[in-house]
């Protein structure tokens, strides 16, 4: 979370270096890669079979010569690579964009590990494999402290750590920390693209398949092994048809804590008895679901950890007992962690620190006994931290297959001691180094890795990572001929450390350079956006130029927002900007209302007596009331990065003050009900309808809370409605309530026939539609966020009393839309997407309803304000409405331009994937859903209605 001073300094330096050095290389690399892939795809298959046979033939003891030979021929290798690349380049230039597409279009055979054969085959089995089989158990969101700390439920696993049978690590999972990119990292060893985040959500998309990429799964398959898979069906989408036996579970139905896991566990005993598989993969989702729904401190969490521990225990016992499992390595890992709210996707320490354990009785011979459990650490870095990509080369080394070509991983050196001969250790590392070196040559063709060239260069302290990598490779080369020629054992440790040093640097280089961009599309999008801004500019400018301070304020806020998008910390802390702007805007409103007190009062002369008393007071001190309520709102949910962990109202205060919480929630519902009453106050039937719907909505909320956050309910609400309404009935009930809420609108139309609207309510920001929408949004909000709607109502009421011009109202609406988005707990990190209400009334995963509900539950504040502003603007003339539309469109277009420009300009920035890209995704959501759908379409309907 807290990035150090050093981080920000090195961030700048690296960005500079990357812009000048790596930037141009990246594009070239993309082309070459795609060309190479095409080349490979068109190669005949037999090669692979032959290589597979060679594996067995090749002897292990005469590898010294081969090491030597390889070193000497490495230059030739490169030349060959180059020439083939050149040949292929001609026809890849036109379409060489996304590698995935190429592979797909070219190959029809799924199972072939396309790239594995590219390894120089004669060396593959130089080292005897340590294991035959792998049991790969992924527990989704298994943060390191869930296994290693004092509070963990993994008691058996901790005993394994103490006995040395389990080697524990913290595996650094780079952002985006969502399941699919992490699985890609764990299986290919490469850093996945950010596009995978979207694909992760659009689960049905199979374009992200890894079937054509080189992974340890395909390597095992190529060796003739069988793979079985139970759990998260993301695997099945990544590797379609690869598994002999499989049973997928959907990873997006987060309300389900137990079924998903039982579905996996029931297969475990019988699979453990079978000996036909060489990889047995499990992916448990329950723990992640608990995190999303109830957070890491939830009472469910510990129970789930015990359950997972029992699975580990069962597997380990079998590994000890069963003969066919004796040569099996058991990997237990999390794909990512979670933050304190139980979400993930961002780059905070909690999210990037999953646990990683290699378990086998064999490891006891390594004699590494570690202390366990450990006191909870704040930075989650338990034991040694390795990269998540290291899993792939480590498995490759342990199971004895070639390292997948795209891997950036480094063999975890702790396992080197499984081989007694240091020759074999060196060999493992050398294989890894050559594979990485090959990848590096492709990435940096301008750098020469030939030893004869200026090695004197290395005597000066090299500045760039790539230079460091080169120099450490030269150092390896210097040591190599000696060791192979004479075979001095004493040189091996030195060589080993030199190799490890090279691997580390090479990994760093590759991880930071592993992105490719399509600049043309980026610029095209930017241009389109500028076009939209230019279209809306004339109308917006007309209004802005005649509006004095308000116009200046608007322009300044756009400019400062645009500038802010280029600074990573301001992107992370965007809520501060809106809060800060809001205070300034309230100050402006205050000056204005204090300046012309008579304006607002004279406009209220028609009000009832009740209003007459407090309206002037509220007008005069409305700004103060706005500020006070805003101050409360600001503290409701702490978001962002820097202050996210500080206590706030929704997570610290309300859960401990349940009576206050539920009183406020009840008040919110009651007030909404009253507002509904007020519209057709003469009809008893209407009142009854409203009451029933509101009461049903409240009961529904109670039922949801009882099933998801029972800790919010104890004592205060004696009725355990959760018990009655669970599973299917709850879904039905939810649908009924939602249907009821929306049927209020037609019902109210029926009642309004022949009836006049009650007097005195025109100044109140309320319509039946607005109230029904409020009720729906309340249903879609977390229980602790529901009282926020009271504050929103107060805000809307105060604003309605101030006599604001079109532009002022527009600016107010814009600021409060953004401000409330953050007040509800949103932020610019993927991890803050709240899924806990995304499945209300949805039985099965279906992208459309779940997507809509997810959007509504995360954007409830902005949606409410769009609707409230519409009510506030109900008396506006047509040209004023058009001006409103122009101004908000202009605002959106300009802010979007700044976000896009920032992402384009900073595409080589260190935080591009962790900070800027998530912001870009959010900007898309703001633009497409909030602006185009909610604001724009709603406004056009409104205009049409006003016309007709």
């Amino acid at each position: 979370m807290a990035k150090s001073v050093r981080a920000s300094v090195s961030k700048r330096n690296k960005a500079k270096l990357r812009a000048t050095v790596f930037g141009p290389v990246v594009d070239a690399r993309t082309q070459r890669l795609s060309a190479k892939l095409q080349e490979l795809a068109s190669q005949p298959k037999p090669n692979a079979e032959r290589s597979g046979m060679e594996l067995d033939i090749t002897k292990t003891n005469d590898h010294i010569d081969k090491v030597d030979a390889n070193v000497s021929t490495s230059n030739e290798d490169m030349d060959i690579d180059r020439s083939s690349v050149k040949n292929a380049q001609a026809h890849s230039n036109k379409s060489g964009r996304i590698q995935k597409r190429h592979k797909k279009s070219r190959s029809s055979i799924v199972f072939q590990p396309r790239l594995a054969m590219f390894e120089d085959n004669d060396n593959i089995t130089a080292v005897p494999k340590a294991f035959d089989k792998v049991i790969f158990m992924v527990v989704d969101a298994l943060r390191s402290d869930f296994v290693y700390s004092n509070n963990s439920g993994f008691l058996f696993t901790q005993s394994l750590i103490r006995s040395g049978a389990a080697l524990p690590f913290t595996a650094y999972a780079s952002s985006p920390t969502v399941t699919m990119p992490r699985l890609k990292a764990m299986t290919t060893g490469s850093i996945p693209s950010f596009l995978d985040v979207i694909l992760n959500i659009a689960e049905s998309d199979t374009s992200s398949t890894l079937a054509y990429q080189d992974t340890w799964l395909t390597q095992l398959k190529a060796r003739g092994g069988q793979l079985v898979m139970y759990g998260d069906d993301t695997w099945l989408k990544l590797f379609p048809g690869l598994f002999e036996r499989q049973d997928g579970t959907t990873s997006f139905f987060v309300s389900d804590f137990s079924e998903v896991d039982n579905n996996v566990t029931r297969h475990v005993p019988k699979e453990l008895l079978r000996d036909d598989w060489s990889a047995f993969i499990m992916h448990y989702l329950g723990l992640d679901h608990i995190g999303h729904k109830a957070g890491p401190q939830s009472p469910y969490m510990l129970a789930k950890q015990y359950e997972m521990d029992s699975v580990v225990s069962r597997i380990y016992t079998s590994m000890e007992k069963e003969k066919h499992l004796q040569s099996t390595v058991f990997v237990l890992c999390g794909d990512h962690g979670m933050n304190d709210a139980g979400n993930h996707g961002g780059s905070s320490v909690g999210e990037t620190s999953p646990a990683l354990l290699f378990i086998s009785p064999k490891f006891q011979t390594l004699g590494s006994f570690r202390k366990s459990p450990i006191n909870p650490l704040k930075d989650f870095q338990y034991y040694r931290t390795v990269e998540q990509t290291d899993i792939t080369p480590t498995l490759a080394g342990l199971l004895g297959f070639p390292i997948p070509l795209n891997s950036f991983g480094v063999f975890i050196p702790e396992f080197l001691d499984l081989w007694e001969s240091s020759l074999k250790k060196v060999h493992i590392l050398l294989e890894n180094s050559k594979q990485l070196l090959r990848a590096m040559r492709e990435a940096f063709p301008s750098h020469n890795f030939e030893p004869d060239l200026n090695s004197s260069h290395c005597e000066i302290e090299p500045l760039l990572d790539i230079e460091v990598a080169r120099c450490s490779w030269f150092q390896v080369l210097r040591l190599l001929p000696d060791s192979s020629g004479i075979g001095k054992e004493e040189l091996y440790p030195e060589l080993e450390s030199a190799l490890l040093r090279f691997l580390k640097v090479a990994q760093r280089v590759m991880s930071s350079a592993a992105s490719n961009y399509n600049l043309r599309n980026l610029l095209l999008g930017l241009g389109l956006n500028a076009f939209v801004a230019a279209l809306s500019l004339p109308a917006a400018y007309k209004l802005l130029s005649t509006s004095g301070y308000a116009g200046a304020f608007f322009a300044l806020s756009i400019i400062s927002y645009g500038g802010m998008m280029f600074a990573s910390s301001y992107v992370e802390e965007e809520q501060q900007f809106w809060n800060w702007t809001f205070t300034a805007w309230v100050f402006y409103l205050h000056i204005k209302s204090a300046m012309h007190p008579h304006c607002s009062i004279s406009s209220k002369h028609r009000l009832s007596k009740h209003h007459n008393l407090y309206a002037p007071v509220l007008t005069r001190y409305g700004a103060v009331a706005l500020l006070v309520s805003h101050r409360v709102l600001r503290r409701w949910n702490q978001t962002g990065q820097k202050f996210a962990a500080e206590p706030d109202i929704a997570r610290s205060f309300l859960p401990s003050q349940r009576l206050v919480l539920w009183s406020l929630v009840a008040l919110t519902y009651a007030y909404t009900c009253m507002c509904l009453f007020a519209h057709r106050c003469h009809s008893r039937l209407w009142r009854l309808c409203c009451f029933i719907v509101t009461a049903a909505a409240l009961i529904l909320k109670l039922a949801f809370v009882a099933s998801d956050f029972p800790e919010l309910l104890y004592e205060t609400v004696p009725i355990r409605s959760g018990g009655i309404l669970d599973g299917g009935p709850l879904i039905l009930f939810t649908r009924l309530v939602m249907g009821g809420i929306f049927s209020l609108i037609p019902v109210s139309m029926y009642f309004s026939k022949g009836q006049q609207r009650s007097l005195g309510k025109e100044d109140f920001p309320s319509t039946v539609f607005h109230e029904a929408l409020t009720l729906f949004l309340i249903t879609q909000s977390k229980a602790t966020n529901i009282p926020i709607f009271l504050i929103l109502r107060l805000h809307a009421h105060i604003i309605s009393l101030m006599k604001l011009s079109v532009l002022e109202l527009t600016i107010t609406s814009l600021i409060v839309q953004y401000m409330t988005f953050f007040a509800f707990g949103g932020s610019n990190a993927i991890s803050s997407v709240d899924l806990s209400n995304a499945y209300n009334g949805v039985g099965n995963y279906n992208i459309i309803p779940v997507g809509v509900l997810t959007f509504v539950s995360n954007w409830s504040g902005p949606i409410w304000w769009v609707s409230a502003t519409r009510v506030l603007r109900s008396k506006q003339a047509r040209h004023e409405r058009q001006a409103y539309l122009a101004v908000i469109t202009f605002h959106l277009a300009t802010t979007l331009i700044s976000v896009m420009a920032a992402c384009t300009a900073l595409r080589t920035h260190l935080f591009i994937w962790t900070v800027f890209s998530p912001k870009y995704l959010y900007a898309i959501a703001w633009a497409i859903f909030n602006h185009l759908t909610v604001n724009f379409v709603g406004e056009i309907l409104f205009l049409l209605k006003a016309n007709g």
Partner: protein
Amino acid sequence: MPSPPSSPTPAPPIITTPQSTSPSTSSSTTAMESEKSAPPVPVLPTPLAKACASLYPLAVLAFYAARFQKVVDDPVAELAHQVPILLAAQVAFVVVCLPAKGTAEVVSEGGVGVEGKVGGSGAGNSGTGGGAGSGVILRPGKVGRRRTPNGGHASGSGSGSGGAGGAGGAATTLTILLATPVLATLLILFGAPFTTHHLQTLLCAVHMAILSSVALVYVHGVDGAVWREVWGVRRPGDVVWGGALGTCVGAWLGAVPIPLDWDRPWQAYPITILTGAYIGWAVGMALGRTLLYGKRIRFVEGDGELKKVE
């Protein structure tokens, strides 16, 4: 102009003057409208006062800069230590450079109706004065009290030392007693921590109060009309109001560096705010004395512009 009876609430009298006729009147012609109270206050016309007014903000900034490291190291202790020093300096400054409450009235060229009434006292109209900024008419008045209706006649020049001293004392007391809680509340409303950092907020408010309101109280006392103008941010620009508004705006701008991920110790809560307040105060004083002297923030039918009063 007469004003209607004031309401029981602290709200100012409701002015029934019609809106300004044209929004484009940025010139000095229609300067008088709605309520008028004390006109902008110039620095005393003595050479000492003028030199002092120029140098004093710089001296305070230099002092603050010199002690900045200590503020960063231990904000609470250091800020507490600085309070008496700052207070003494500020009182000395206002006594030397500014006319005390009731001792000076600057009158605009067009003949201003100065209306200073609270709670039913009649409007006290000062006489017409000389040219812009130059006509300083000093008159005696009771320190810390409302202006009496008959305080309209001009007296000789030279501020009474007793009056000035008493005004300084009143300014000090009122600043501490009234302005500090108000500013602390404002700080919290504008986003300062509410549950923690109480001492920091309080000290920050004390510093801001000394910077902004010692001079205001010294010059204007508890003149209700002036304070209503302060509440409505409608005071004409002068050294006092410029300093006060600058302090608040500076403090607001001071929040900008806090979210940055530099993890510097000076990013801790009160420091940037207070630094912004100090800088804003100095800038506000300089601007108020020179460029923006006599100008007000003004909105006319949704059209806001700085309007010259002189």
